[in-house]
């Protein structure tokens, strides 16, 4: 088959319809589309796309298998390196990763839609309900703190090597940011649920309602397990630090999204309430800001997004910005809030100033500078602050021996080794708020380092296979 020149875009729900529901926006490739897109891959020998993948998926290989009509084989290749492909296919910022390095990007109809293909293959495998089998235990035990992408990825790799893993989750549901943060219309909870089921099928025990540092202490875990991995995420929301921020109707994106996603406040008759403003202002321009804006839109609001820099600096995925615009989210760029105005305890508006871009700052982005005399007021009845998050202090406070930075992130080397013997960390807890895939990469590296350590200590025979080569698979 002669390959099409142009990239095949992802079919999506019509914007006018989708703002009235919480169903997934991106509908997924049909088999026909997937095969046509797979045919565009040039199968480059040096696979430049792979250098953009934090978990080193063999991209040309899985695409080639798909193109050859072997989707099962394709899924196997994908799953060998990526424990959560149905999630990554949906939420990875591919334009800054694999697809950034695709040779077709500039002049040949656009990068191969690697993320869309990953999702197709992962969903295909998921629909066939192929569950991985549980490995026989090698005798080593590891505790994993948190159940977000870093932890799940670490747990899965350890379990594949025959390590008995117990995951401790503070909330009543496993998944971390995948269930409390990312909305249903971008990442359906059924998809997350299936991926977690697969991790559990590897023999990983998941204990919910355990707050490490409160319910159980790090010292106890270190005493009871051969190693401990902390993947507790960056859970603490940052606020603006301006007047009016404690008014009713002002919330962090974390709170707003948790109420809607985890607690299902968007459903009729839900017990957990959520603010339902008519005019909502979202502050920030990252993926979380887009999620909050689009969620508020679906709850019936007119939504304005306020960001102090310009469009070029918006940190969100391109697709999220595009989808937000299609859904009628207004962008007030180069605008900075200076005060939230209230009446009888509730939000009634926001005072902002206009900004212009000056010299580049430490992050390399041009620093926004206030335009004198540009103050103006916006009417609104709800404000959602999406300015990022910092690591949760509970673990550090209960375990001061753990070295952290001034920002509260855990100090660890590239393999997740912390200042404490046997204690590893990765994901947002170590880096500060980043992406799902970077967290997964960190989880994998820590799993590798833990296996090597277990081998050195003679707990397992071989870090590659967990010393499990004789055991075979037991269900």
């Amino acid at each position: 088959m002669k390959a099409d020149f142009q990239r095949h875009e992802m079919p999506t729900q019509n914007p006018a319809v989708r703002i009235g529901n919480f169903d997934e926006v991106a509908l997924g490739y049909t088999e026909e589309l997937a095969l046509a897109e797979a045919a565009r891959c040039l199968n480059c020998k040096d696979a430049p796309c792979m250098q953009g993948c934090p978990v080193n998926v063999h991209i040309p290989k899985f695409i080639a298998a798909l193109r050859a009509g072997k989707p099962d084989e394709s899924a196997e290749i994908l799953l060998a390196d990526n424990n959560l492909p149905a999630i990554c296919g949906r939420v990875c910022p591919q334009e800054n990763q694999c697809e950034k390095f695709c040779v077709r990007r500039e002049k040949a109809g656009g990068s191969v839609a690697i993320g869309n293909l990953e999702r197709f293959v992962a969903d295909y495998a998921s629909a066939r309900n192929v569950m991985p089998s549980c490995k026989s235990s090698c005798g080593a035990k590891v505790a994993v703190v948190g159940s977000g992408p870093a932890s799940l990825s670490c747990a899965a790799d350890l379990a594949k090597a025959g390590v008995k893993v117990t995951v401790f989750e503070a909330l009543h549901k496993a998944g971390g940011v995948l269930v409390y943060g990312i909305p249903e219309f971008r990442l359906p909870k059924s998809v997350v649920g299936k991926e977690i089921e697969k991790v559990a099928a590897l023999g990983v025990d998941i204990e919910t309602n355990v707050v490490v540092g409160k319910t159980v202490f790090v010292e106890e875990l270190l005493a009871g397990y051969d190693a401990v991995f902390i993947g507790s995420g960056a859970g603490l929301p940052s606020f603006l630090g301006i007047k009016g921020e404690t008014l009713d109707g002002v919330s962090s994106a974390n709170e707003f999204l948790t109420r809607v996603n985890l607690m299902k406040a968007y459903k009729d008759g839900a017990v957990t309430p959520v603010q339902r403003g008519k005019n909502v202002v979202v502050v920030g321009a990252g993926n979380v800001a887009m999620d909050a804006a689009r969620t508020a839109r679906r709850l019936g609001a007119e939504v304005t997004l306020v960001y102090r820099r310009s469009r070029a600096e918006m940190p969100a995925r391109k697709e999220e910005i595009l989808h937000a615009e299609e859904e009628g989210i207004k962008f007030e760029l180069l605008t900075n809030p200076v005060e939230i105005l209230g009446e009888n305890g509730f939000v009634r508006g926001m005072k902002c100033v206009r900004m212009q871009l000056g010299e580049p700052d430490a992050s390399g982005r041009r620093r926004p500078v206030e335009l004198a005399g540009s103050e103006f007021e916006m009417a609104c009845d709800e404000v959602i602050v999406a300015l990022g998050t910092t690591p949760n202090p509970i673990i550090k406070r209960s375990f001061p021996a753990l070295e952290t930075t001034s920002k509260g992130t855990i100090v660890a080397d590239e393999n997740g080794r912390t200042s404490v013997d046997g204690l590893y960390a990765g994901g947002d807890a170590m880096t500060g708020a980043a992406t799902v895939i970077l967290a997964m990469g960190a989880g994998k590296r820590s799993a590798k380092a833990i296996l090597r350590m277990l081998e050195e200590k003679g707990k397992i025979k071989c870090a590659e296979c967990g010393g499990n080569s004789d055991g075979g698979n037991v269900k």
Partner: protein
Amino acid sequence: MEKYEIVSKRTLADRVNEYVVYAPSVARHCLAGQFVILRVDDDGERVPFTVCDYDRAVGTVSILVQEVGYTTMKLAETKVGDRLADFVGPLGNPTDLSAYKRILLVGGGIGAAVIYPQAKQLFSENRAADVVLGARNVSLVMYEEEFRKYCKNFHLITDDGSSGRKGFVTDIVRELLEKGVGYDAVFAVGPLGMMRAVCNVTREFGVHTVVSMNSLMVDGTGMCGCCRITVGGKIRYACIDGPEFDGHEVDFDEAASRAVMYREAEKEHVCRLRGTAK
């Protein structure tokens, strides 16, 4: 016993029940002043309750719950042997009154549940506190016998005089301070208005006062920021920085406003539960 099973349930006052829940993981480390978050069923909301007693050997934790809204009413419908969907903790920081010798505990209404374990602990440490217990009326007086046993001087007062003296807890707090009882600290727990009133009195006398903030919460681990209050001009989270704060520094007006943020939604749920929805 199963995880989160209700082991016993008894009515302590009008629409106030004590629930003893089997939760060994919580009982293992919990201390007075900390709280738990529970969900009654799988569709339920997450609601915080202060731990009022625990038994590490048996693995149980007791909470005292007043029927005020949807979830507390749902909880009241449960029976011994029922299982709660979730019960997580201990959350927040334990009460720390170790720096003080002469302590006055002031409890208003359901606040008795928070000062009761304190009274018991101080008694066991040989520095029994004085206690002022206030309630709207006799039907809402809790732990009277226990307080009499564990405290040095016990003062009971009700709004209508149906039990003990007639008046408000602040009447007694003021009298004691005017009399010159040299308290090192006052620990006041109850409705926001009562805690504010006590703080206004103790401020006059310059007596350090600790209050326990019962803010709205979702996760209870610092993740959502819903429970934020202003203390000494700074934003603090009741869940991870509290729940106890210097009462003279707390912005009670703001806390009172934030406490009713979801009142309309709550009313609707209660109507639905009672079958009186429009």
